[in-house]
């Protein structure tokens, strides 16, 4: 048996791959649900109802999807250039901290759009710095960025703890370790009244559109692709590899930082060490399910948000542990890898 690359990769196969992967994951996880003594049909039905069954459910799912779109884009732009940014979680927290610090006092008094712009830039810079460290360590010393970005996630989370128990601690929070809140006037307006859904969703979708344009239509987009596919050939063709990868790192870390900012300015209002239910790590799954395409990232974010919001509701209704959402996500990721392989390669016997 041998595996060889297909001469022509059909677009249909590429688009069908994530659906096949998700279906495979749901089938495999049905066994785990059955082990809990619950019919998979009932459980999946409850999940759908929990994610889309009411106006509130739909807004909760989309609220959950908003930061995921940005962390998904963060992973997608980095992976396209073969920069393995696994540090989205830490970059998210750095962005969130920057947003809380700036939004509490620094930008209060500025006219609204300007205040938001300062917060967004500050959060993106905070996220970008956390990724620039491992990116430069790789470019300068050849240190594998997978391990360093992973380790920096732990450092970042401890740093958040340090801040919310220290200089950024909210004195009005009855001793709870949470940061000072952002000024009420700076919170993002709701998209739907009486819900937590905010304009951050619109922002995230617009950003996805911009990334799409940048990747498809600009020299920088072509350079990142070339640097990812074959750095040696790209360098020979005159692509400045180091500069390109540094720019990709700033963009990727910035996107994850922006995700933290909209979570703070949107539904939450302050930072704690449990602000993120794994947005950074889920962003990696989102990016892979999307085959690194920005439009796919939006769709995959809604899917992953559906699984998580739906699983919480399903767990309350049936008693199946809500960790099933994490299992489904992990199996979908692995299944997507296999599906993509068979879309681009064929098996010869």
């Amino acid at each position, binding site marked *: *048996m*041998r*595996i060889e690359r297909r001469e022509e990769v059909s677009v249909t196969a590429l688009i069908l791959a994530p659906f096949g992967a998700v279906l495979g994951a749901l089938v495999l996880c049905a066994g*785990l649900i059955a*082990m*809990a003594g619950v019919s998979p049909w009932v459980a999946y039905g409850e999940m759908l109802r929990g994610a889309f069954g009411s106006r509130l459910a739909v807004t909760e799912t989309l609220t959950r999807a908003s930061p995921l779109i940005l962390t998904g884009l963060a992973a997608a732009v980095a992976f396209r250039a073969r920069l*393995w940014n*696994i540090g989205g979680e830490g970059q998210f927290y750095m962005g969130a901290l920057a947003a809380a610090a700036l939004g509490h006092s620094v930008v209060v008094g500025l006219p609204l759009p300007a205040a938001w712009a300062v917060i967004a830039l500050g959060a993106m810079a905070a996220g970008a710095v956390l990724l620039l460290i491992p990116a430069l*360590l790789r470019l300068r*010393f*050849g*240190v*594998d960025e*997978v*391990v*360093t970005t*992973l*380790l*920096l*996630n*732990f*450092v970042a989370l*401890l*740093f958040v*703890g*340090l801040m919310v*128990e*220290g200089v950024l601690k909210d004195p009005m929070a009855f001793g709870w370790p949470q940061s000072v809140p952002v000024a009420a006037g700076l919170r993002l307006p709701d998209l739907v009244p009486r819900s937590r859904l905010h304009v951050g969703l619109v922002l995230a979708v617009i950003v996805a559109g911009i990334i799409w344009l940048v990747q498809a239509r600009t020299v920088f987009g072509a350079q990142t692709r070339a640097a990812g596919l074959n750095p040696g050939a790209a360098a020979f063709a005159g692509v400045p590899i180091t500069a390109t990868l540094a720019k990709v790192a700033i963009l990727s870390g910035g996107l994850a930082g922006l995700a933290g900012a909209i979570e703070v300015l949107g539904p939450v209002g302050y930072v704690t060490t449990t602000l993120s239910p794994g947005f950074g*790590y889920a962003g*990696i*799954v989102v990016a*892979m399910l999307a085959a690194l395409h920005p439009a796919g990232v939006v769709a995959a974010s809604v899917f992953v948000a559906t699984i998580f919001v739906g699983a919480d509701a399903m767990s309350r209704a049936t008693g*199946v*542990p809500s*960790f*099933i959402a*994490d*299992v489904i*996500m*992990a*199996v979908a*990721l*692995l299944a997507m*890898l*296999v599906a993509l*392989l068979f879309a681009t390669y064929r098996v010869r016997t």
Partner: protein
Amino acid sequence: MTVALDILMTASLWEAVLRIATPLIFGVLGALICERAGVLNLGIEGIMTLGAMVGWLTVYWGGDLWLGMAVAVLVGMMMGWLHAMLTVPLGLSQHVSGLGITLLASALAYYLYRLWVEVGDLPPTIVPFQPLAVPGLSSIPFLGEAVFTQMPPTYVALILVVLVAWFLNRTPAGLALRMTGENPHAVEAQGLNPHRIRIWAVMVGSGLMALGGAFLTTAAFNSFFPTMVQGRGWICIALVVFASWRPGKALIGALLFALFDAFQLRLQTVVEGVPYQLFLMAPYVLSIVALVLVARRARVPEALMQPYRRGER
């Protein structure tokens, strides 16, 4: 300064060093075996978590402590088999597959724990391994208390370092494994099957990783709780690089790391006014610094992360 010296002169510090190093030794040996055969196994963090859970659960359900260790190894090997299938015959990205295995194994651990174990206010406990004094040797002053009154798995870990070093450097099978990580085409030319060697290496390595996880719940602590592995898997991946892919150096790396960890734990209780988070950050920062220091001199296995496809260069 005298505070630091006082801490270093206590036998209990060195006893703690070996205890903290044990899961790292298992993990770093496991990662090292995988990587010497040419496969990066980022599933380590999840495999350690799952090993911690199933090892503990076996004992919680009435099994022997050693049976718990054996079950952990078996489950770890199953996860390793999955990673090997995806990355060796299918040749998928070792980075992404490994991360997928970590997500899957830790999610499975949490899901099954929640499903099978009734958790009240506090997680349920088991009776863990007790320190075993080596007859004779344990009565040596200082050294006896520091080295020879450890939990039994710690002795196993130390013996394994020697065994793995001997296997890799002194046996034909070890040579074949190392050759698979350097030049799989040469292995094929010798009439050996590089795929089979890689699959076995990843399975055995993953079994050792799970053993490291199981040590946490059956010896270092007595219960299982989520996120208890705390990045130890990633630290092991860094230690392999630090050790230049050599078992002996890996042991030294794990011990140095554990010494630093045990030392900062004790320093925390003495030094006042420094936030505890800074102490907790230190091990992760130290790992990164260690990676930078050795990065230039690291002797990476030539074919690490290169999928092998027959007849393709």
